């Protein structure tokens, strides 16, 4: 027989757990049913949820049964309570998912050609996965759009909007910008700016977070849409580091592999899922939308040095570095170290900037070093 010390008993009491579909899942204080379920690998569908945001409980897809409670509860918004028995696969939950999604589909384009021109449509995927009836007819919800918005990046398609408010909440809670809002009410609820202004005339910083969080592609990116790029699910994602500043945000280059005669072409940038990278899935206007340079015809792709006539000609890296080193050393010898100054680009990483100041101070012995974003 194992003897239990007082300490063991206390430690055991401190571990709190809930039961999800018969599996005991430990949770820590403040965790929701959804978070505990996700850790345990139990699938609970969500549309309005994003781990970066305060739970809204608005889309209703995550309702589950809790033993002893009359009403189903939103898993995203309900704190896990010690000893609670959660049921996610009952007949009632199944009927709920099917009827809710069927109702959504009466108010949403069901054709992927229309409803999935950009990002994967999570609503249509969910309707397929849970076998939602698609024959409940179609109703008309006239919602205000902003078709005349002249901003170059973000397009709002009111017809595929499910008013889950992920975009407006992201804009407020993560970006602190509050450029967009839920507007109107009832079936005509839509996403709007004050006075239906163009996003350019609001506080919007064009970070594109609204595009990223939208589950149905109602918030879409203009460039790939207008250039009729393939839907996102047909593109290959290549994880990379944004080279616009020193922060080092991770992003996914979306590559159309068949383009450019099979060489591939980056047609879009998306952010990695929240919680997986240091930037937590957030990007800024440059990282998300300024990828045009990648395939620009004037982009410099190899080192250049000037010849006797002053013209730039292609050369090898070894030669280019030698020419630069000779030039710098020559100036230092002729005019002293303080005749030199080093300015590094804001597009360099923190590590690269560190090395530039090391080069300046330790190798060339001058404090004349600056980084263009340091003002």
């Amino acid at each position, binding site marked *: 027989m194992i003897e239990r010390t007082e300490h063991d008993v206390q430690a055991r009491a401190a571990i709190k757990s809930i039961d999800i579909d018969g599996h005991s899942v430990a949770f820590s204080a403040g965790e929701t049913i959804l978070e505990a379920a996700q850790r345990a690998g139990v699938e609970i569908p969500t549309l309005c949820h994003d781990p970066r945001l305060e739970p809204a409980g608005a889309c209703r897809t995550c309702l589950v049964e809790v033993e002893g409670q009359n009403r189903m509860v939103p898993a995203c918004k309900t704190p896990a309570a010690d000893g609670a028995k959660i049921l996610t696969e009952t007949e009632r939950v199944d009927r709920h998912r099917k009827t809710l999604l069927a109702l959504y589909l009466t108010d949403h384009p069901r054709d992927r050609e229309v409803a999935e021109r950009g990002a994967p449509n999570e609503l249509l995927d969910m309707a397929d996965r849970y076998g939602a009836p698609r024959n409940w007819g179609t109703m008309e919800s006239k919602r205000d759009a902003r078709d005349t918005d002249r901003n170059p990046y973000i397009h709002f398609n009111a017809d595929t909007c499910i008013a889950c408010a992920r975009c407006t909440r992201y804009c407020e809670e993560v970006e602190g910008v509050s450029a967009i809002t839920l507007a109107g009410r009832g*079936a005509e609820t839509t996403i709007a700016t004050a006075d239906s202004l163009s996003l350019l005339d609001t506080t919007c910083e064009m970070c594109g977070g609204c595009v990223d969080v939208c589950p149905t592609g109602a918030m879409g990116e203009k460039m790939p849409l207008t250039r009729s790029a393939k839907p996102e699910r047909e593109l290959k994602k290549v994880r990379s580091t944004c080279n616009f500043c020193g922060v080092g945000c991770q992003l996914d280059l979306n590559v159309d592999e068949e383009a450019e005669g099979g060489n591939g072409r980056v047609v879009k940038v998306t952010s990695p899922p929240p919680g997986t990278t240091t930037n937590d899935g957030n990007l800024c206007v440059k990282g998300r939308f300024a990828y045009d340079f990648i395939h620009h015809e004037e982009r410099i792709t190899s080192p250049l040095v000037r010849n006797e006539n002053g013209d730039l000609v292609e050369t090898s890296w070894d030669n280019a570095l030698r020419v630069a080193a000779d030039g710098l050393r020559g100036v230092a010898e002729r005019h002293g170290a303080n005749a030199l100054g080093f300015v590094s680009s804001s597009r360099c990483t923190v590590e690269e900037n560190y090395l530039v100041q090391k080069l300046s101070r330790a190798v060339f012995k001058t404090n004349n070093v600056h980084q263009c974003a340091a003002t």
Partner: protein
Amino acid sequence: MTKHDAASVPDRLREAGGLLEGVARDIARETGVPEAHVWGVGSFYHLLSRPDAKIRVCTGLSCLMGGAQGVLDACKDAGMPVEEASCLAGCDVPPAVLRDRRTLPHVSVEDVQRAEGDWQRLDAAAAPGTTEWTGTVGPESASDGQLAIDLCAGAAPLGQAFARAVELGPERIIEEIAAAGLQGRGGAGFPAHIKWNGVAGQAETERYFVLNADEGEPGTFKDRECMLRRPDLVLEGMAIAAYAVGAKDCYLYLRGEFEIPWGIVERMIKEIDESGVFGDIRFHMHEGNGAYICGEETALLEALEGKRGMPRHKPPYPVSEGLWRKPTLIHNVETIACVPGIVQRGGEWFKGLGRSEAGTKLYCVSGHVAKPGTYELPLGATLDELVEVAGGYIGTLKAFSPGGASSGFLPAEMRDKPLDFKTLSGLGSMLGSAGVVVLNDTVDLRWAAAQQLRFFEAESCGQCAPCRIGTRYLRESVERHARGASVDGTLEHAADVAWQMNEGSICGLGQAAPLPLTSALKYFPEDFPEGA
């Protein structure tokens, strides 16, 4: 930006004449609230979002049966800036019409014609030029202590019940409320003392009292009469409740269409402020802006904070996290008006006034009865008893709604059931706010259900999908059915949609919204002929 800056947004929008171009930016500059938020708030409330509409004709069921469509058409023909409105709490004086923020009773087509197209000249011949009008109430005379409220008794001197309350102290007061068996009269019938104890027991000492005077359930107009005739009971009840739960600030949220009750309550608050009869308890009045959903207590709190009136998830309940997340006691007007009597005469007295449940109750009755009005009867009176005091039925009874649109329809056979919380809940209906609407056999229940669905569709806040989509889906389905369309999109999925709305909606609006249709289908299938 302070909480008061944010709370001032709806008032500022109203003062600016509604959501006109540039207003959101101006208010954002003045308050620090983001302009998009200001826009979101203004676009939510119908009295703000449509600044051009000056005349609003009530298209609630009772007003439609009282000729609202003709008045609406006449206004349109006369070129007035007119639109349809959800219930204006004037079901006893149909059709009710809102002119700016003034509700006019019994407006006729002749009234409209007399205005000759000038909306500002529209007046009701039934109450011409009056700044105050009241509806029919009863009983006209009652012996002392026979009624909990007694609308006809005239205002009592303020302060006696409050003085008695202070004598008793908070604990004894709440014991009397418990002994009285007082149930919330806004619709839920929740035992009042549980909420009082809930607020009184909070560790947080900053607490509030909020009066829910956003009366908007179609068929209901009793809170209007309470404020018009017994503002003394309402304000003294609030002072007692605030004292009992340790609150100093009382917020009154009156629907924006209650211009006349507002004036009366405001005058009495001024008297109270001058006399100091309730010590350091302060009253703050807030005006709604046209949103039925703000009668839902947490939506009301959002509205008071200056936001879009979308209900919160519960728990947490307002007793622990209410206005500005502080413990808050919220009561309906009629509930709080019962409090002074309970404090003065004791809980047992109040309990004894009821029949199947505690107390007397203000029943509103409208539709096909001779004298629509507000009648105070023992809780548990039957439909026949109520209609008897209201002058009798007009025509042959076919159906009735016991508690407004949210209670659905019941057949004439249930005329002898006690109209109380428990019995009606057991029948799959509810007493709700006791807005009884009587329909005779000239009424087609498919048509009646469609009108109620139209109301819920117009008043859904749009936050959650089951209600946002379901209310419109059902209304369109019924209308298609009425036009004789068949197959997809008629009523074959109505039961599933109703189930989903009931199970999936966040608040009571979406949960109850299908009931008019499902109950009409259940009790009056003959009104839904196939392919007709």
